[in-house]
Protein backbone atom coordinates (compact mmCIF):
# COMPACT_ATOMS: atom_id res chain seq x y z
CA UNK A 1 0.00 0.00 0.00
CA UNK A 2 2.98 2.28 0.42
CA UNK A 3 3.15 3.56 -3.09
CA UNK A 4 -0.42 2.90 -4.07
CA UNK A 5 -1.99 5.85 -5.78
CA UNK A 6 -5.62 5.55 -6.82
CA UNK A 7 -5.32 8.25 -9.45
CA UNK A 8 -2.32 6.70 -11.16
CA UNK A 9 -3.85 3.24 -10.80
CA UNK A 10 -7.00 4.34 -12.63
CA UNK A 11 -5.08 6.28 -15.26
CA UNK A 12 -2.81 3.27 -15.76
CA UNK A 13 -5.71 0.96 -16.55
CA UNK A 14 -7.09 3.53 -18.97
CA UNK A 15 -3.79 3.95 -20.80
CA UNK A 16 -3.19 0.23 -21.20
CA UNK A 17 -6.62 -0.29 -22.73
CA UNK A 18 -7.35 -0.20 -26.41
CA UNK A 19 -10.33 1.54 -27.96
CA UNK A 20 -12.83 -1.30 -27.38
CA UNK A 21 -11.71 -1.91 -23.82
CA UNK A 22 -12.13 1.78 -23.15
CA UNK A 23 -15.67 1.77 -24.51
CA UNK A 24 -16.37 -1.26 -22.30
CA UNK A 25 -14.98 0.54 -19.24
CA UNK A 26 -17.07 3.62 -19.93
CA UNK A 27 -20.25 1.57 -20.41
CA UNK A 28 -19.55 -0.42 -17.26
CA UNK A 29 -19.03 2.71 -15.17
CA UNK A 30 -22.17 4.36 -16.56
CA UNK A 31 -24.19 1.20 -15.90
CA UNK A 32 -22.92 0.94 -12.34
CA UNK A 33 -23.74 4.59 -11.74
CA UNK A 34 -27.19 4.13 -13.26
CA UNK A 35 -27.82 1.13 -10.98
CA UNK A 36 -27.01 3.13 -7.85
CA UNK A 37 -30.69 3.83 -7.00
CA UNK A 38 -31.27 0.06 -6.66
CA UNK A 39 -28.59 -0.27 -3.98
CA UNK A 40 -30.94 1.17 -1.36
CA UNK A 41 -31.19 -2.04 0.63
CA UNK A 42 -27.43 -2.38 1.15
CA UNK A 43 -25.10 -0.66 3.60
CA UNK A 44 -25.48 2.44 1.43
CA UNK A 45 -29.00 3.02 2.74
CA UNK A 46 -29.57 6.35 4.44
CA UNK A 47 -31.26 6.00 7.81
CA UNK A 48 -33.75 8.88 7.83
CA UNK A 49 -34.12 10.40 4.37
CA UNK A 50 -35.28 8.27 1.44
CA UNK A 51 -32.21 6.81 -0.26
CA UNK A 52 -33.23 7.51 -3.86
CA UNK A 53 -34.13 11.09 -2.98
CA UNK A 54 -30.74 11.61 -1.33
CA UNK A 55 -29.09 10.32 -4.50
CA UNK A 56 -30.73 13.09 -6.51
CA UNK A 57 -30.21 15.85 -4.00
CA UNK A 58 -27.70 16.37 -2.56
CA UNK A 59 -25.49 13.71 -4.20
CA UNK A 60 -26.05 14.04 -7.97
CA UNK A 61 -26.81 17.76 -7.92
CA UNK A 62 -23.68 18.37 -5.82
CA UNK A 63 -21.60 16.38 -8.30
CA UNK A 64 -23.03 18.44 -11.17
CA UNK A 65 -22.35 21.73 -9.41
CA UNK A 66 -18.86 20.66 -8.36
CA UNK A 67 -18.05 19.91 -11.99
CA UNK A 68 -19.28 23.35 -12.97
CA UNK A 69 -17.39 25.15 -10.23
CA UNK A 70 -14.29 23.14 -11.07
CA UNK A 71 -14.14 24.76 -14.50
CA UNK A 72 -13.87 28.14 -12.83
CA UNK A 73 -11.77 27.32 -9.76
CA UNK A 74 -9.83 24.26 -10.85
CA UNK A 75 -9.24 24.75 -14.56
CA UNK A 76 -8.74 28.48 -14.79
CA UNK A 77 -7.78 29.27 -11.21
CA UNK A 78 -10.39 31.92 -10.36
CA UNK A 79 -11.74 31.73 -6.83
CA UNK A 80 -15.53 32.04 -7.06
CA UNK A 81 -17.30 32.27 -3.70
CA UNK A 82 -20.69 33.15 -5.15
CA UNK A 83 -21.42 30.08 -7.22
CA UNK A 84 -24.78 29.69 -5.50
CA UNK A 85 -25.97 32.75 -7.43
CA UNK A 86 -26.16 30.78 -10.67
CA UNK A 87 -27.82 27.87 -8.90
CA UNK A 88 -30.41 30.31 -7.55
CA UNK A 89 -30.94 31.92 -10.96
CA UNK A 90 -31.60 28.51 -12.51
CA UNK A 91 -33.97 27.53 -9.71
CA UNK A 92 -35.89 30.81 -9.80
CA UNK A 93 -36.14 30.72 -13.59
CA UNK A 94 -37.84 27.37 -13.23
CA UNK A 95 -40.02 28.58 -10.36
CA UNK A 96 -41.19 31.77 -12.04
CA UNK A 97 -41.73 30.34 -15.51
CA UNK A 98 -43.50 27.34 -14.05
CA UNK A 99 -45.78 29.68 -12.08
CA UNK A 100 -46.56 32.16 -14.87
CA UNK A 101 -46.36 30.12 -18.07
CA UNK A 102 -47.30 26.65 -19.13
CA UNK A 103 -43.74 25.65 -19.96
CA UNK A 104 -42.53 22.33 -18.59
CA UNK A 105 -39.16 21.57 -17.01
CA UNK A 106 -37.42 20.55 -20.22
CA UNK A 107 -38.61 23.67 -22.03
CA UNK A 108 -37.47 25.82 -19.12
CA UNK A 109 -34.05 24.13 -18.96
CA UNK A 110 -32.42 26.03 -21.88
CA UNK A 111 -33.95 29.29 -20.63
CA UNK A 112 -32.58 28.66 -17.13
CA UNK A 113 -29.13 27.85 -18.51
CA UNK A 114 -29.31 30.93 -20.73
CA UNK A 115 -30.29 33.17 -17.82
CA UNK A 116 -27.41 31.87 -15.70
CA UNK A 117 -24.96 32.34 -18.56
CA UNK A 118 -26.22 35.86 -19.15
CA UNK A 119 -25.69 36.62 -15.47
CA UNK A 120 -22.21 35.08 -15.75
CA UNK A 121 -21.24 37.34 -18.65
CA UNK A 122 -22.79 40.36 -16.97
CA UNK A 123 -20.84 39.75 -13.78
CA UNK A 124 -17.74 38.57 -15.60
CA UNK A 125 -17.05 41.50 -17.91
CA UNK A 126 -16.47 44.08 -15.18
CA UNK A 127 -15.09 41.81 -12.47
CA UNK A 128 -12.81 39.32 -14.19
CA UNK A 129 -10.13 41.99 -14.49
CA UNK A 130 -9.70 41.39 -10.79
CA UNK A 131 -7.64 38.50 -9.49
CA UNK A 132 -7.41 36.22 -6.51
CA UNK A 133 -8.81 37.58 -3.27
CA UNK A 134 -10.44 40.57 -4.92
CA UNK A 135 -12.37 38.41 -7.34
CA UNK A 136 -13.41 36.13 -4.47
CA UNK A 137 -14.89 39.08 -2.55
CA UNK A 138 -16.81 40.40 -5.58
CA UNK A 139 -18.29 37.00 -6.37
CA UNK A 140 -19.18 36.52 -2.72
CA UNK A 141 -21.06 39.79 -2.87
CA UNK A 142 -22.84 38.76 -6.05
CA UNK A 143 -24.05 35.54 -4.46
CA UNK A 144 -25.51 37.47 -1.56
CA UNK A 145 -27.10 40.08 -3.85
CA UNK A 146 -29.08 37.44 -5.72
CA UNK A 147 -30.34 35.89 -2.49
CA UNK A 148 -31.25 39.24 -0.92
CA UNK A 149 -33.06 40.37 -4.07
CA UNK A 150 -35.04 37.13 -4.09
CA UNK A 151 -35.83 37.69 -0.42
CA UNK A 152 -37.06 41.27 -0.84
CA UNK A 153 -38.83 41.74 -4.15
CA UNK A 154 -42.50 40.87 -4.46
CA UNK A 155 -42.41 38.96 -7.75
CA UNK A 156 -40.39 36.14 -6.18
CA UNK A 157 -42.85 35.94 -3.23
CA UNK A 158 -40.01 37.09 -0.97
CA UNK A 159 -39.28 34.84 2.02
CA UNK A 160 -42.36 32.71 1.30
CA UNK A 161 -40.67 31.33 -1.78
CA UNK A 162 -42.35 29.76 -4.78
CA UNK A 163 -44.40 26.64 -4.31
CA UNK A 164 -46.37 24.56 -6.74
CA UNK A 165 -43.58 24.15 -9.29
CA UNK A 166 -44.65 21.68 -11.98
CA UNK A 167 -43.40 18.14 -11.88
CA UNK A 168 -41.40 17.38 -15.06
CA UNK A 169 -43.47 15.68 -17.79
CA UNK A 170 -43.01 11.92 -18.25
CA UNK A 171 -40.03 10.64 -20.22
CA UNK A 172 -40.63 7.66 -22.54
CA UNK A 173 -43.95 7.07 -20.82
CA UNK A 174 -42.35 6.88 -17.40
CA UNK A 175 -43.88 9.24 -14.83
CA UNK A 176 -41.93 11.24 -12.28
CA UNK A 177 -43.10 10.47 -8.76
CA UNK A 178 -42.25 11.91 -5.35
CA UNK A 179 -41.84 8.53 -3.71
CA UNK A 180 -39.69 7.07 -6.48
CA UNK A 181 -36.88 9.32 -7.65
CA UNK A 182 -34.97 6.83 -9.81
CA UNK A 183 -36.01 8.52 -13.03
CA UNK A 184 -34.93 11.88 -11.71
CA UNK A 185 -31.54 10.49 -10.75
CA UNK A 186 -31.06 9.21 -14.29
CA UNK A 187 -31.92 12.61 -15.71
CA UNK A 188 -29.30 14.28 -13.52
CA UNK A 189 -26.87 11.50 -14.42
CA UNK A 190 -27.32 12.32 -18.10
CA UNK A 191 -26.60 15.97 -17.33
CA UNK A 192 -23.46 14.93 -15.45
CA UNK A 193 -22.29 12.78 -18.37
CA UNK A 194 -22.88 15.62 -20.82
CA UNK A 195 -20.88 17.93 -18.58
CA UNK A 196 -18.00 15.47 -18.33
CA UNK A 197 -18.01 15.08 -22.11
CA UNK A 198 -17.91 18.84 -22.54
CA UNK A 199 -15.10 19.40 -20.05
CA UNK A 200 -12.96 16.64 -21.52
CA UNK A 201 -13.44 17.98 -25.03
CA UNK A 202 -12.45 21.48 -24.01
CA UNK A 203 -9.54 20.44 -21.84
CA UNK A 204 -7.48 18.77 -24.56
CA UNK A 205 -7.95 21.61 -27.03
CA UNK A 206 -7.29 25.31 -27.14
CA UNK A 207 -9.63 26.47 -24.33
CA UNK A 208 -8.09 23.98 -21.91
CA UNK A 209 -4.60 25.18 -22.71
CA UNK A 210 -5.66 28.80 -22.41
CA UNK A 211 -7.25 28.16 -18.99
CA UNK A 212 -4.24 26.19 -17.81
CA UNK A 213 -1.89 28.97 -18.92
CA UNK A 214 -4.06 31.60 -17.22
CA UNK A 215 -4.11 29.58 -14.03
CA UNK A 216 -0.35 29.23 -13.94
CA UNK A 217 0.77 32.70 -15.02
CA UNK A 218 -1.83 35.08 -16.31
CA UNK A 219 0.62 37.78 -17.42
CA UNK A 220 2.84 35.37 -19.28
CA UNK A 221 -0.25 33.82 -20.89
CA UNK A 222 -1.43 37.16 -22.22
CA UNK A 223 2.03 38.01 -23.51
CA UNK A 224 2.06 34.68 -25.35
CA UNK A 225 -1.10 35.75 -27.15
CA UNK A 226 -3.85 34.21 -25.03
CA UNK A 227 -6.87 36.55 -24.96
CA UNK A 228 -7.14 36.11 -21.21
CA UNK A 229 -10.27 38.12 -20.51
CA UNK A 230 -12.22 36.27 -23.21
CA UNK A 231 -11.26 32.84 -21.91
CA UNK A 232 -11.86 33.84 -18.31
CA UNK A 233 -15.35 34.99 -19.23
CA UNK A 234 -15.95 31.74 -21.12
CA UNK A 235 -14.82 29.75 -18.11
CA UNK A 236 -17.04 31.75 -15.79
CA UNK A 237 -20.00 31.50 -18.15
CA UNK A 238 -19.69 27.73 -18.62
CA UNK A 239 -19.50 27.30 -14.86
CA UNK A 240 -22.59 29.48 -14.59
CA UNK A 241 -24.42 27.43 -17.22
CA UNK A 242 -23.88 24.22 -15.27
CA UNK A 243 -24.89 25.92 -12.02
CA UNK A 244 -28.04 27.16 -13.76
CA UNK A 245 -28.86 23.69 -15.06
CA UNK A 246 -28.41 22.29 -11.56
CA UNK A 247 -30.74 24.99 -10.26
CA UNK A 248 -33.50 24.14 -12.75
CA UNK A 249 -33.22 20.46 -11.81
CA UNK A 250 -33.22 21.24 -8.11
CA UNK A 251 -36.40 23.31 -8.36
CA UNK A 252 -38.07 20.56 -10.40
CA UNK A 253 -37.09 17.95 -7.82
CA UNK A 254 -37.96 19.97 -4.74
CA UNK A 255 -41.13 21.58 -6.21
CA UNK A 256 -40.62 24.45 -3.79
CA UNK A 257 -37.87 27.04 -3.54
CA UNK A 258 -37.20 29.89 -1.16
CA UNK A 259 -34.30 32.30 -0.66
CA UNK A 260 -32.94 30.54 2.43
CA UNK A 261 -31.92 27.58 0.25
CA UNK A 262 -29.40 29.75 -1.57
CA UNK A 263 -27.14 31.03 1.16
CA UNK A 264 -23.37 31.41 1.15
CA UNK A 265 -23.21 27.97 2.78
CA UNK A 266 -24.03 26.32 -0.53
CA UNK A 267 -21.19 28.12 -2.31
CA UNK A 268 -18.76 27.11 0.40
CA UNK A 269 -19.97 23.52 0.49
CA UNK A 270 -19.59 23.11 -3.28
CA UNK A 271 -16.15 24.68 -3.08
CA UNK A 272 -15.37 22.18 -0.32
CA UNK A 273 -16.47 19.34 -2.63
CA UNK A 274 -14.06 20.59 -5.29
CA UNK A 275 -11.12 20.98 -2.93
CA UNK A 276 -11.86 17.80 -0.98
CA UNK A 277 -12.08 15.67 -4.10
CA UNK A 278 -9.07 17.17 -5.87
CA UNK A 279 -9.15 20.61 -7.39
CA UNK A 280 -8.75 20.53 -11.17
CA UNK A 281 -9.34 16.78 -11.54
CA UNK A 282 -12.85 15.95 -12.76
CA UNK A 283 -12.87 12.43 -11.27
CA UNK A 284 -11.70 13.78 -7.95
CA UNK A 285 -14.34 16.48 -8.05
CA UNK A 286 -17.04 13.90 -8.79
CA UNK A 287 -15.86 11.81 -5.85
CA UNK A 288 -15.75 14.88 -3.63
CA UNK A 289 -19.25 15.96 -4.57
CA UNK A 290 -20.62 12.46 -4.07
CA UNK A 291 -18.99 11.93 -0.67
CA UNK A 292 -19.76 15.34 0.76
CA UNK A 293 -23.32 15.14 -0.56
CA UNK A 294 -23.90 11.65 0.78
CA UNK A 295 -22.06 11.58 4.09
CA UNK A 296 -24.27 13.95 6.13
CA UNK A 297 -27.33 11.88 5.27
CA UNK A 298 -25.62 8.54 5.86
CA UNK A 299 -24.66 9.52 9.40
CA UNK A 300 -27.98 11.16 10.20
CA UNK A 301 -28.56 8.55 12.94
CA UNK A 302 -26.17 10.38 15.20
CA UNK A 303 -28.46 13.39 14.73
CA UNK A 304 -26.94 16.50 16.27
CA UNK A 305 -23.36 15.26 16.23
CA UNK A 306 -23.39 14.61 12.49
CA UNK A 307 -22.21 18.05 11.43
CA UNK A 308 -19.37 17.78 13.92
CA UNK A 309 -18.37 14.40 12.48
CA UNK A 310 -18.73 15.79 8.98
CA UNK A 311 -16.40 18.67 9.85
CA UNK A 312 -13.92 16.31 11.49
CA UNK A 313 -13.82 14.11 8.40
CA UNK A 314 -13.11 17.16 6.28
CA UNK A 315 -10.29 18.32 8.53
CA UNK A 316 -8.70 14.90 8.84
CA UNK A 317 -8.84 14.09 5.13
CA UNK A 318 -7.51 17.47 4.10
CA UNK A 319 -4.64 17.02 6.55
CA UNK A 320 -3.61 13.72 5.06
CA UNK A 321 -4.38 14.59 1.47
CA UNK A 322 -3.86 18.32 1.07
CA UNK A 323 -4.31 18.11 -2.71
CA UNK A 324 -7.62 16.29 -2.35
CA UNK A 325 -8.56 12.64 -2.73
CA UNK A 326 -7.56 12.46 -6.40
CA UNK A 327 -5.13 15.30 -7.10
CA UNK A 328 -4.79 17.08 -10.40
CA UNK A 329 -3.40 14.73 -12.98
CA UNK A 330 0.02 15.81 -14.11
CA UNK A 331 2.19 12.85 -14.77
CA UNK A 332 4.57 13.07 -17.65
CA UNK A 333 3.93 9.62 -18.99
CA UNK A 334 0.21 10.04 -19.42
CA UNK A 335 0.66 13.18 -21.40
CA UNK A 336 2.66 11.49 -24.11
CA UNK A 337 -0.43 9.67 -25.27
CA UNK A 338 -2.73 12.59 -24.78
CA UNK A 339 -2.53 13.46 -28.46
CA UNK A 340 -3.95 10.06 -29.38
CA UNK A 341 -7.45 10.71 -28.13
CA UNK A 342 -7.45 14.46 -28.62
Amino acid at each position, binding site marked *: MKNFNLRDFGAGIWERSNRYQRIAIVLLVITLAALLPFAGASFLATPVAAYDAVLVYPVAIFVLMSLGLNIVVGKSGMLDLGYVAFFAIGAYTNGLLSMHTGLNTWEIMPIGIGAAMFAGVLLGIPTLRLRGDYLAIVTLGFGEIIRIVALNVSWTNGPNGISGIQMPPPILGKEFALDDQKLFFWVVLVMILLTIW*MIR*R*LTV*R*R*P*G*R*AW*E*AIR*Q*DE*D*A*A*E*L*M*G*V*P*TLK*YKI*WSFTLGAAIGGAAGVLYAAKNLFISPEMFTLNVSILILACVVFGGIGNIWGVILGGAILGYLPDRIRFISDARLLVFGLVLVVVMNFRPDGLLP*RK*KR*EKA*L*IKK*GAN*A
Partner: protein
Amino acid sequence: MSKVLLKLENLTMKFGGVTALNEVNLEIHEGEILALIGPNGAGKTTVFNVITGVYQATSGSVTFDGHNLAGRKRFQITGLGVARTFQNIRLFGDMTTLENVITATDVHKKSGLVGALFGTPRARREEKENRAKAHEILQFIGIDEYADRLAKNLPYGVQRRLEIARAMGTSPKLLLLDEPAAGFNPQEKVELAATIKKVRDAGYTVLLIEHDMSLIMGISDRVAVLDFGTKIADDSPAVVQNDPRVIEAYLGVPADAS
Protein backbone atom coordinates in the same frame (compact mmCIF):
# COMPACT_ATOMS: atom_id res chain seq x y z
CA MET B 1 19.51 49.48 -45.24
CA SER B 2 16.53 47.21 -44.97
CA LYS B 3 13.17 48.35 -43.72
CA VAL B 4 12.60 49.59 -40.18
CA LEU B 5 10.59 47.01 -38.24
CA LEU B 6 10.32 48.68 -34.86
CA LYS B 7 10.70 52.34 -34.09
CA LEU B 8 10.72 53.96 -30.67
CA GLU B 9 10.32 57.72 -30.84
CA ASN B 10 11.02 59.98 -27.86
CA LEU B 11 9.85 57.23 -25.58
CA THR B 12 9.49 58.34 -21.98
CA MET B 13 8.29 56.16 -19.13
CA LYS B 14 7.80 57.61 -15.67
CA PHE B 15 6.83 55.78 -12.52
CA GLY B 16 5.76 58.53 -10.16
CA GLY B 17 8.86 60.66 -9.76
CA VAL B 18 11.22 58.10 -11.26
CA THR B 19 12.04 58.44 -14.94
CA ALA B 20 12.82 54.94 -16.14
CA LEU B 21 13.14 55.93 -19.78
CA ASN B 22 13.93 59.41 -20.96
CA GLU B 23 13.30 60.38 -24.59
CA VAL B 24 14.64 57.13 -26.00
CA ASN B 25 14.85 56.81 -29.78
CA LEU B 26 15.61 53.44 -31.24
CA GLU B 27 15.17 51.76 -34.59
CA ILE B 28 15.50 48.12 -35.37
CA HIS B 29 15.78 46.94 -38.95
CA GLU B 30 14.39 43.78 -40.37
CA GLY B 31 16.74 40.83 -40.06
CA GLU B 32 19.25 42.29 -37.66
CA ILE B 33 20.36 41.39 -34.18
CA LEU B 34 20.29 44.49 -32.03
CA ALA B 35 21.70 44.21 -28.52
CA LEU B 36 20.41 46.48 -25.80
CA ILE B 37 22.90 46.82 -22.98
CA GLY B 38 23.36 48.95 -19.93
CA PRO B 39 24.11 48.73 -16.22
CA ASN B 40 21.51 47.36 -13.80
CA GLY B 41 18.50 49.62 -13.58
CA ALA B 42 19.24 51.35 -16.86
CA GLY B 43 15.72 50.65 -18.17
CA LYS B 44 16.35 47.75 -20.55
CA THR B 45 13.51 45.55 -19.37
CA THR B 46 11.27 48.63 -19.18
CA VAL B 47 11.82 49.03 -22.93
CA PHE B 48 10.57 45.47 -23.41
CA ASN B 49 7.60 46.08 -21.14
CA VAL B 50 6.59 49.19 -23.04
CA ILE B 51 6.93 47.48 -26.43
CA THR B 52 4.86 44.46 -25.37
CA GLY B 53 2.14 46.55 -23.75
CA VAL B 54 2.83 45.65 -20.13
CA TYR B 55 3.30 49.38 -19.46
CA GLN B 56 1.73 52.28 -21.32
CA ALA B 57 4.38 54.86 -22.19
CA THR B 58 4.12 58.24 -20.48
CA SER B 59 4.92 59.91 -23.79
CA GLY B 60 6.45 59.08 -27.12
CA SER B 61 5.43 56.33 -29.49
CA VAL B 62 6.20 52.76 -30.42
CA THR B 63 5.61 51.83 -34.05
CA PHE B 64 5.88 48.24 -35.15
CA ASP B 65 5.60 47.24 -38.79
CA GLY B 66 3.47 50.29 -39.52
CA HIS B 67 1.20 49.86 -36.49
CA ASN B 68 1.18 52.21 -33.55
CA LEU B 69 1.27 49.96 -30.49
CA ALA B 70 -0.09 52.49 -27.99
CA GLY B 71 -3.28 51.33 -26.30
CA ARG B 72 -3.26 47.86 -27.80
CA LYS B 73 -3.84 44.85 -25.60
CA ARG B 74 -0.88 42.61 -24.88
CA PHE B 75 -2.21 39.63 -26.78
CA GLN B 76 -2.98 41.86 -29.77
CA ILE B 77 0.62 43.07 -29.85
CA THR B 78 1.74 39.45 -29.74
CA GLY B 79 -0.66 38.77 -32.60
CA LEU B 80 0.95 41.51 -34.66
CA GLY B 81 4.27 39.72 -34.41
CA VAL B 82 6.16 40.74 -31.27
CA ALA B 83 7.11 37.99 -28.84
CA ARG B 84 9.31 38.05 -25.79
CA THR B 85 11.06 35.90 -23.25
CA PHE B 86 11.37 36.68 -19.58
CA GLN B 87 14.44 37.53 -17.56
CA ASN B 88 13.15 35.39 -14.69
CA ILE B 89 11.86 32.26 -16.39
CA ARG B 90 8.07 32.28 -16.57
CA LEU B 91 7.13 29.06 -18.30
CA PHE B 92 3.87 27.24 -17.65
CA GLY B 93 5.46 24.77 -15.25
CA ASP B 94 2.62 22.25 -15.06
CA MET B 95 2.45 21.91 -18.83
CA THR B 96 4.76 19.87 -20.97
CA THR B 97 7.39 21.45 -23.16
CA LEU B 98 5.24 20.76 -26.20
CA GLU B 99 2.09 22.21 -24.62
CA ASN B 100 3.98 25.37 -23.70
CA VAL B 101 4.79 25.96 -27.35
CA ILE B 102 1.33 24.92 -28.58
CA THR B 103 -0.25 27.45 -26.23
CA ALA B 104 1.76 30.11 -28.03
CA THR B 105 0.96 28.82 -31.52
CA ASP B 106 -2.75 29.23 -30.72
CA VAL B 107 -2.43 32.98 -31.19
CA HIS B 108 -2.92 32.82 -34.95
CA LYS B 109 -5.63 30.17 -34.88
CA LYS B 110 -9.25 30.95 -35.57
CA SER B 111 -11.09 28.15 -33.82
CA GLY B 112 -12.22 28.89 -30.30
CA LEU B 113 -14.33 27.28 -27.66
CA VAL B 114 -17.28 26.23 -29.78
CA GLY B 115 -15.03 24.62 -32.37
CA ALA B 116 -13.21 22.73 -29.66
CA LEU B 117 -16.45 21.53 -28.08
CA PHE B 118 -17.93 20.08 -31.23
CA GLY B 119 -14.64 19.03 -32.80
CA THR B 120 -15.21 20.97 -36.01
CA PRO B 121 -12.92 20.07 -38.93
CA ARG B 122 -11.17 23.41 -38.60
CA ALA B 123 -10.48 22.87 -34.89
CA ARG B 124 -9.10 19.39 -35.59
CA ARG B 125 -6.93 20.64 -38.43
CA GLU B 126 -5.59 23.52 -36.35
CA GLU B 127 -4.76 21.20 -33.47
CA LYS B 128 -2.73 19.09 -35.87
CA GLU B 129 -0.99 22.10 -37.38
CA ASN B 130 -0.17 23.40 -33.90
CA ARG B 131 1.35 20.12 -32.87
CA ALA B 132 3.46 19.85 -36.02
CA LYS B 133 4.62 23.44 -35.79
CA ALA B 134 5.53 23.08 -32.12
CA HIS B 135 7.61 19.99 -32.80
CA GLU B 136 9.30 21.80 -35.66
CA ILE B 137 10.28 24.70 -33.39
CA LEU B 138 11.51 22.38 -30.65
CA GLN B 139 13.69 20.58 -33.18
CA PHE B 140 14.98 23.90 -34.47
CA ILE B 141 15.98 24.98 -30.96
CA GLY B 142 17.27 21.49 -30.28
CA ILE B 143 15.09 20.46 -27.33
CA ASP B 144 12.56 18.18 -29.03
CA GLU B 145 13.71 15.25 -26.92
CA TYR B 146 12.16 17.04 -23.92
CA ALA B 147 8.79 17.52 -25.66
CA ASP B 148 6.80 15.43 -23.18
CA ARG B 149 8.52 16.52 -20.00
CA LEU B 150 6.85 18.96 -17.64
CA ALA B 151 8.41 22.39 -18.02
CA LYS B 152 9.08 22.70 -14.29
CA ASN B 153 11.17 19.50 -14.32
CA LEU B 154 13.47 20.57 -17.14
CA PRO B 155 17.13 21.39 -16.61
CA TYR B 156 17.79 25.10 -16.29
CA GLY B 157 19.43 25.49 -19.67
CA VAL B 158 16.55 23.75 -21.42
CA GLN B 159 14.06 25.99 -19.64
CA ARG B 160 15.90 29.04 -20.99
CA ARG B 161 15.79 27.57 -24.48
CA LEU B 162 12.14 26.70 -24.10
CA GLU B 163 11.46 30.35 -23.31
CA ILE B 164 12.84 31.15 -26.75
CA ALA B 165 10.94 28.27 -28.38
CA ARG B 166 7.67 29.36 -26.79
CA ALA B 167 8.16 32.92 -28.01
CA MET B 168 8.88 31.58 -31.50
CA GLY B 169 5.62 29.65 -31.28
CA THR B 170 3.69 32.87 -31.80
CA SER B 171 5.36 33.23 -35.25
CA PRO B 172 6.83 36.62 -34.41
CA LYS B 173 8.58 38.99 -36.76
CA LEU B 174 10.44 40.48 -33.83
CA LEU B 175 11.81 38.39 -31.01
CA LEU B 176 12.65 40.14 -27.74
CA LEU B 177 15.10 38.13 -25.67
CA ASP B 178 15.53 39.29 -22.08
CA GLU B 179 18.88 38.03 -20.79
CA PRO B 180 18.67 34.61 -22.44
CA ALA B 181 22.14 33.67 -21.21
CA ALA B 182 21.61 34.53 -17.54
CA GLY B 183 23.20 31.84 -15.39
CA PHE B 184 24.87 30.06 -18.31
CA ASN B 185 28.43 28.79 -18.24
CA PRO B 186 30.82 29.86 -21.06
CA GLN B 187 30.19 26.69 -23.07
CA GLU B 188 26.41 27.14 -22.90
CA LYS B 189 26.80 30.76 -23.90
CA VAL B 190 28.65 29.77 -27.05
CA GLU B 191 25.87 27.35 -27.92
CA LEU B 192 23.23 29.97 -27.23
CA ALA B 193 25.01 32.48 -29.44
CA ALA B 194 24.93 29.95 -32.26
CA THR B 195 21.21 29.38 -31.64
CA ILE B 196 20.43 33.10 -31.72
CA LYS B 197 22.31 33.47 -34.99
CA LYS B 198 20.39 30.53 -36.38
CA VAL B 199 17.12 32.14 -35.31
CA ARG B 200 18.06 35.34 -37.09
CA ASP B 201 19.11 33.45 -40.22
CA ALA B 202 15.70 31.78 -40.23
CA GLY B 203 14.17 35.19 -40.83
CA TYR B 204 13.47 36.56 -37.37
CA THR B 205 14.60 39.96 -36.16
CA VAL B 206 16.11 39.86 -32.70
CA LEU B 207 16.29 42.48 -29.98
CA LEU B 208 18.49 41.18 -27.22
CA ILE B 209 19.14 42.31 -23.67
CA GLU B 210 22.35 40.85 -22.37
CA HIS B 211 25.13 41.53 -19.92
CA ASP B 212 27.78 39.26 -21.31
CA MET B 213 29.96 41.43 -23.53
CA SER B 214 31.70 38.60 -25.33
CA LEU B 215 28.34 37.14 -26.34
CA ILE B 216 27.06 40.49 -27.57
CA MET B 217 30.17 41.46 -29.44
CA GLY B 218 30.17 38.11 -31.18
CA ILE B 219 26.66 38.09 -32.55
CA SER B 220 25.06 41.52 -32.67
CA ASP B 221 24.97 43.73 -35.73
CA ARG B 222 24.39 46.81 -33.65
CA VAL B 223 24.56 47.68 -29.97
CA ALA B 224 22.45 50.30 -28.19
CA VAL B 225 23.48 51.38 -24.71
CA LEU B 226 21.12 52.67 -22.04
CA ASP B 227 22.24 54.43 -18.89
CA PHE B 228 19.74 55.78 -16.34
CA GLY B 229 17.00 55.63 -18.94
CA THR B 230 18.86 57.58 -21.60
CA LYS B 231 20.40 56.17 -24.73
CA ILE B 232 24.08 57.04 -24.71
CA ALA B 233 25.33 55.07 -27.70
CA ASP B 234 23.97 53.20 -30.73
CA ASP B 235 26.48 51.83 -33.18
CA SER B 236 28.38 48.76 -34.31
CA PRO B 237 29.86 46.61 -31.52
CA ALA B 238 33.41 47.67 -32.24
CA VAL B 239 32.62 51.37 -32.02
CA VAL B 240 30.46 51.04 -28.91
CA GLN B 241 33.14 49.03 -27.17
CA ASN B 242 35.54 51.93 -27.39
CA ASP B 243 33.05 54.70 -26.70
CA PRO B 244 34.32 56.54 -23.60
CA ARG B 245 30.78 57.23 -22.38
CA VAL B 246 29.94 53.54 -22.48
CA ILE B 247 33.13 52.62 -20.67
CA GLU B 248 32.33 55.24 -18.07
CA ALA B 249 28.79 53.96 -17.59
CA TYR B 250 30.00 50.44 -17.10
CA LEU B 251 33.31 50.86 -15.30
CA GLY B 252 33.12 54.32 -13.84
CA VAL B 253 35.62 57.02 -14.79
CA PRO B 254 38.94 55.55 -15.96
CA ALA B 255 41.73 55.62 -13.40
CA ASP B 256 44.05 57.88 -15.37
CA ALA B 257 41.37 60.54 -15.73
CA SER B 258 40.59 60.89 -12.06
